[in-house]
């Protein structure tokens, strides 16, 4: 509700009753009026648009580097995804007779996030469709910004993943398999060449193939050419996270608990936790997807439960499913649990104690 302006004049001057009994309001010079409105009269600087803008800024170093590594084609993927998302947002808002609110940057951010989860060599029409699907099916169908249950970018990616899975698994600069070949020089590599490329990474994750740490950690941190656009550098993802944390835009609990859970479980399973943390979409997902405001719980402990749940599902999918990667489905699944978490995990209001049974009985 916007501020109202109310006449500072005496009532009889601004209102006059004519013979018909209707009250007509004389137009009062605006400059004589005071603003009124309910407290607080000060507001924090952050608005929805500014927050979206800062998240985009936090993603920029990663995007630029990802495009640098992926080449012009990767740039095209990013642009097409953003165009698809923004255009779909505008068209949907028009069709649904809502105010066009593209300027709030949320659609742009969705498009950008989607692009970062895509392989750099996709045919151009795929990211465009992904952007459209992300906004239409992921967001506007639920009522637009703030009402969606699932992370729109991941909805877009999930649809692309199941619809054009051959493109989605082979459009990398180098096959993920090559990573294994390059970094590990494993003799038995012949045995896996016939499997899908991502399967090789999966084997490494499951500990069926072993790699020496020094060979893969460095590229994963600084320049990883065999992943999605947004997976090129863990350092730049963490830089983006640092920006978000310094600006107090996201809660530290989600990335820490998410990645921590995956690392802990893989350590228990006997796998290298650092490889598990740095490879695949885990960091990108934990820092930028799981932290999406709309689709994670509102309370601190709710966020912990959400993030730990994401971590467990990611671990299960990575180790016990046919898919090499589980971050996307883990986040989408836990998004679905968010309303439930919010229903049961609430802050304890100030001045309330958890009543002991005797006290309750005494009251009754």
């Amino acid at each position, binding site marked *: 509700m916007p501020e109202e302006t109310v006449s500072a004049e005496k009532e009889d001057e601004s209102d006059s009753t004519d013979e018909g009994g209707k009250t007509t309001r004389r137009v009062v010079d605006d400059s004589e009026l005071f*603003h009124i*409105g309910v407290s*607080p009269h000060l507001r*924090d600087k952050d608005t929805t648009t500014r927050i979206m803008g800062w998240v985009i800024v936090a993603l920029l170093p990663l995007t630029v580097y990802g495009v640098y590594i992926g080449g012009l084609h990767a740039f095209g993927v990013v642009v097409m995804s953003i165009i698809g998302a923004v255009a779909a947002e505008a068209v949907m808002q028009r069709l649904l007779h809502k105010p066009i609110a593209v300027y709030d940057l949320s659609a742009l951010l969705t498009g950008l996030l989607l692009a970062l989860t895509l392989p750099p060599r996709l045919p151009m029409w795929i990211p465009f469709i992904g952007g459209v699907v992300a906004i239409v099916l992921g967001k506007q169908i639920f009522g637009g910004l703030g009402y969606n249950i699932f992370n729109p970018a991941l909805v877009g990616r999930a649809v692309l993943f199941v619809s054009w899975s051959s493109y989605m698994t082979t459009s990398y600069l180098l096959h993920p398999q090559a990573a294994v070949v390059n970094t590990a020089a494993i003799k038995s590599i012949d045995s896996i060449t016939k499997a899908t490329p991502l399967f090789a990474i999966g084997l490494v994750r499951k500990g069926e193939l072993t790699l020496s740490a020094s060979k893969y950690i460095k590229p994963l941190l600084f320049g990883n050419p065999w992943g999605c656009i947004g997976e090129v550098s863990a350092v730049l993802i963490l830089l983006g996270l640092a920006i978000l944390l310094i600006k107090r835009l996201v809660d530290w609990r989600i990335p820490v608990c998410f990645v921590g859970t995956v690392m802990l479980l893989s350590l228990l399973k006997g796998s290298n936790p650092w490889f598990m943390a740095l490879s695949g979409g885990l960091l990108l997902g934990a820092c930028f997807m799981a932290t999406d405001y709309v689709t*994670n719980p509102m*309370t601190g402990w709710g966020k912990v439960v959400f993030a730990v749940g994401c971590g467990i599902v990611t671990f299960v999918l990575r180790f016990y499913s046919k898919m090499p990667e589980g971050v996307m489905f883990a986040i989408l699944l836990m998004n679905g649990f968010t309303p439930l978490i919010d229903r049961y995990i609430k*802050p304890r*209001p*100030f001045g309330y104690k958890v009543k002991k049974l005797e006290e309750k009985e005494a009251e009754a």
Partner: protein
Amino acid sequence: MELARKLRGILPGSGGVHPPSQKIAADMSITPGPQPAEVFIPLSQHLGTPCEPLVAKQDRVMVGTRIGDSEGFVSAPVHSSVSGEVTGIVMHPHPTGEDSLAVVIKSDRLDTLDSAVKPHGNPDELTPEEIRRLVREGGIVGMGGAGFPTHVKLSPPADKPIELVIINGAECEPYLTGDYRLMLERGEDVVKGARLIQRAVGAERVVVAIEETSPQAINAMREAGGPLGMEVVSLPARYPQGAEKTLVDTITGKQVPHGKLPMEVGAIVDNVGTAAAIYDAVYMGMPLVERTLTVAGDGVARHANLKVKIGTLVEDVIDHCGGLVGGRGKVIVGGPMMGIAQYTMEVPVTKTTSGITVLSRETMMKEEPGSFTCIRCGRCVKNCPMNLMPYLIGAYADKGMWDKLEDLNIEDCMECGCCAYGCPTRNPLVQLCKVGKEGFVRKRSKMEALERAGKED
């Protein structure tokens, strides 16, 4: 202990926000306010029963003459702040937004004291009973904003012993510096007033609570109160640090149970200004007819800390400070976080007016408009010092689902505004919460009426 207290302040989940402090009037010493030609003294300046007028038109009154009182226990008398003639008892705009009965007095500008204004013997020999009586006769109410009659606070029931008196110098509202100046300039009076409170309730300890951003006030109070065994604690600066329950929690680590007063955990909280007013009433016999307030903001020509006669119109105070500058924006009685924006400057200063904040039209216009669509960022939940869920309260109140509001403990909301302050979509959460409380109370009284009717059948 000190470290633990600091940690509590910065740990996530402790609530509160950090608005820019804007203490631009901090270096201005307290100066006398305007000498108004006419004062409008509302008969209701406190929580509880409003006063009945004790004077009639054309009566002559002096400074300190009692002009209104009531039989109710939870009530406080009002006194004339000028000498002159009563010209009427009229409905007049009140800072709370509703018109209320006010005594209009035309000042003769002589400020002759009433003969009743004189010291009451030796203050050190007063019994708790006498202190309470003098505090009531002085018309003293909580000057931090709520206006709870102080003599009621000083009368805890026998089964609730008070161990701790907290003198609240945590002036957490932006712009306001009146309490800060009082501590610097009248530290000893504040300490003497605090001693009286301590004796009235029989407490062992007195703690003066000041935000760490005011080291000068901390030093001044240490100097004044140290010899008498008063502790001064420095609190982490955050809003709403000065809210009663938050303050008790920060200092004692005990949460006041919901719906109860701080006396439940053996503490009472009184404002620095209240302590000074108690000193005036007991040592000087001077009832509460003037108060210190801050005039600040970018919409007023001169910032000041003024000692203003109660009943002076805000218009006169602002003229005294050089008038408005820029376009007409907001004239707020109180601070910018909890104060009430006025539609007219014809409202009087009351006992609870801690400041007048004036924001210019240009500042108001700079504010970015909101989208009002909750993006579930969770800031309101994180900021709420009462650990409520403002986004849900707002949503249910907006839809008129009053019965849901009880489960959300809407009654514990103190309308501090932390939720709305941090909301990136500019959702008017405080407004929705006020609406919700109103609807909730109305629904409950309706249900009770129905139940009664059912029983009668």
